[in-house]
């Protein structure tokens, strides 16, 4: 009833091809953005910013990048952590070695370096598919792990292998307080989400999806696999590299190579699988699920325990967290294998008829 598009006629092609054709959608997104920019700072405390919102935004960006590669182009990649590391360390090197380098420029340049590395490790995709490609990208992950541990130049010859950045700023405005960091991450995420959405709706996106669905047929009708696959790797690695740079700069502040280990790659892959492969919205859902749920469980389990008068020690909480997390992943994949995004779009479909089902 509230979600019907009755009476909303498009009179121009431009209006017809907008991202949110239904007015209610546009209002909802507008409200959401207003809430995110204005409302959240009023309601959220520092812990919520630093531990939940900022990691969520940055990992949502990384999941967005990975979704382009895995969800839209069908190339499985287990090297996301490695590309994030490339972005982070490259941005660090640009920031530290060039006097007066602006933060945003360093992050973007880090992303470009990640693009180069991503395309390099994407070249095997021209010959191998599926699980074999996953292994090749796994090699990328381990290679970057090794490179940032052993090659001292990348860490500016730091004895401990740990690097740190501080005094970030954007066009003269400092990015120090949690609220400023949050706004910065939100801005970057919104820009990249818009870019990604438009890319996947364009002819490049259709090329990717054609390669994903049936690459031989795509080649037959004239889509160049080289172009499609490598452009997917390039765009994906750029976004993932920027996310990695932001993870190191904005969220951690100081990091060592273990921050971008294989666990990070798996975490991102799980995010897009749970959230929904081949869906921009799905990256957000998946990131929210995987970032927020463990923290929520960590807080809720002792509270539940105290309700029944049982004190649960931290080790048990950690283990129960993992168990519930795993069980929920299995549950979601059984109930909706196409991820939370499909659940969401099904809900929207039903909302268009509600309360008059037929």
């Amino acid at each position, binding site marked *: 009833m509230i979600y019907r598009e009755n009476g909303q006629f498009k009179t121009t092609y431009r209006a017809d091809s907008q991202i949110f054709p239904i007015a209610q959608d546009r209002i909802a997104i507008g409200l959401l953005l207003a809430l995110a920019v204005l409302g959240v700072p009023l309601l959220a*405390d*520092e*812990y919520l910013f*630093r*531990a939940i919102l900022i*990691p969520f935004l940055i990992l949502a960006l990384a999941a967005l990048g990975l979704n382009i590669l895995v969800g839209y182009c069908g190339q499985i990649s287990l090297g996301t952590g490695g590309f994030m590391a490339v972005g982070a360390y490259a941005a660090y090197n640009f920031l*530290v070695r060039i006097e007066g380098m602006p933060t945003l420029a360093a992050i973007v340049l880090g992303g470009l370096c990640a693009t180069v590395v991503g395309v390099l490790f994407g070249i095997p995709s021209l010959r191998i598919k599926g699980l074999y490609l996953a292994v090749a990208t796994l090699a990328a992950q381990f290679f970057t792990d090794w490179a940032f*541990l052993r090659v001292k130049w990348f860490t500016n010859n730091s*004895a*401990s*292998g*740990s690097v*740190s950045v*501080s*005094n970030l700023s954007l066009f003269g405005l400092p990015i*120090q307080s949690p609220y400023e960091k949050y706004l910065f991450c939100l801005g970057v995420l919104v820009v990249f989400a818009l870019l990604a959405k438009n890319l996947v709706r364009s002819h490049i996106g259709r090329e990717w999806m054609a390669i994903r669905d049936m690459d031989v047929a795509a080649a037959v009708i004239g889509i160049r696999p080289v172009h499609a696959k490598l452009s997917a790797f390039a765009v994906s690695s750029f976004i993932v590299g920027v996310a990695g740079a932001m993870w190191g700069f904005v*969220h*951690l*502040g*100081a*990091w*060592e190579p*273990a*921050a971008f280990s294989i666990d990070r790659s798996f975490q991102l892959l799980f995010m897009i699988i749970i959230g929904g492969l081949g869906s921009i919205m799905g990256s957000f859902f998946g990131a929210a699920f995987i970032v927020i749920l463990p*923290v929520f469980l*960590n*807080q*809720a389990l002792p*509270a*539940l325990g*105290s*309700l029944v008068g049982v004190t649960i*020690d*931290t*080790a048990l*909480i*950690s*283990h129960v967290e993992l168990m519930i997390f795993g069980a929920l992943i299995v549950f979601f994949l059984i109930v909706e294998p196409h991820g939370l995004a499909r659940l969401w779009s099904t809900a929207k479909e039903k909302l268009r008829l509600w309360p008059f089902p037929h």
Partner: protein
Amino acid sequence: MKVKSLAIAAAVLAAGLASVAQDALAQAKEQFFPALVYRTGAYAPNGVPFANGYVDYFKLVNAKGGINGVKLTWEECETGYATDRGVECYERLKGKNGGATVFQPLSTGITFALTEKAPGDKIPLITAGYGRSESTDGNVFKWNFPLTGTYWDAADVLLQHIAKKEGGWDKLKGKKFALVYHDSPYGKEPIPLLVERSKMHDFELTTIPVTHPGVEQKAAWLQIRQNKPDYVLLWGWGVMNSTALKEAVATGYPREKMYGVWWAAAEPDVKDVGDGAKGYNGLALQHGAEPNSKVVKDLLEMVHAKGQGTGPKDEVGSVLYMRGLTGAMLAVEGVRRAQERYGKGKVMTGEQARWGYENLALDQKKLDALGFAGVMRPISTSCADHRGATWARVHTWDGKKWNFSSDWYESDSAIIKPMIKAAADKYAAEKKLTRRTPEDCQS
């Protein structure tokens, strides 16, 4: 029917939220000590006794009446030795219960991350026996306290002991040393000092990294078997230590020639290997296993006898348990010292506690009164020296327990002090910090 299930779900959620919200109303009448622990993961065997010792000491202090009447509260947060979880725990606990007094992350990786955050939040960090070696310099690192020693001290004392055994520093010429280290900031810390000493005394140093979590060491020990070093220094943590000893047994490397840092010389590291680890030496950060010390007796009497012990009774007095105990003791004594200036019987803020840690003056009398006779030596910190003491000994595993096998050593400040200053200056230049002024030191 759907409405009913919705209502039930809402009620459960509300109840859950209510009990979580109650925390926020807790008052600041008690001194809050957050405990970043790891009871799960590859480093849990070593993290658990430390955490138990840490929390048990707070219980003991409360049983004895608190710090001049101020009771202590604490809350554990599981970090799993992961930096991002450590940061999340820090953010969660720093403002709770009136504000955290001090953080002791027991992880060099988390220390690096928190070193950036703690000054902004005005909460001191105690990194007793770990952390950044250059944070000894309190003029640059105002909020870091590597009390009782750093890894440069550890490496120096080990080399001093080996040199003494060989009959002098000149006898080290031409000898081969291998450092088997955890491939993380923790493991890499001693390398600058070892390289410095290798240049001074002309011995060969091979560094062999072992990737986290350290269960894959076959390649490393094959390299050692080929290399045949005279001494192996072990800088491991968690399961890496016991794996290293098992591999040493497998490749036939004499354990008497192996020397571990104070985090690689505790019961969890050798118990699994049993007799195979006989003769393995390790550093003792002032204390070893001290089951006969007065503080342990007090603990067993006042805490464990009443069923309030955090861990099993037979763990009390073990090496890492004592490490946690001393860490907690230093945290508490710093607050007590701060109370001398800012008001006895009052709850101290993080800033005030920081002053206390910077002006610690624990002489042997005070330590004996606390029950640490024979466990710890006097420690006194200052603005320039946030470390306070550099005493260490070597102890050896005889198959059943650790026995001290050396005299007291102090690290050589002639070599270490310039290294600390250079590294601290480099950090200050990178972060665009200025050294603290004498006025700031007095405040």
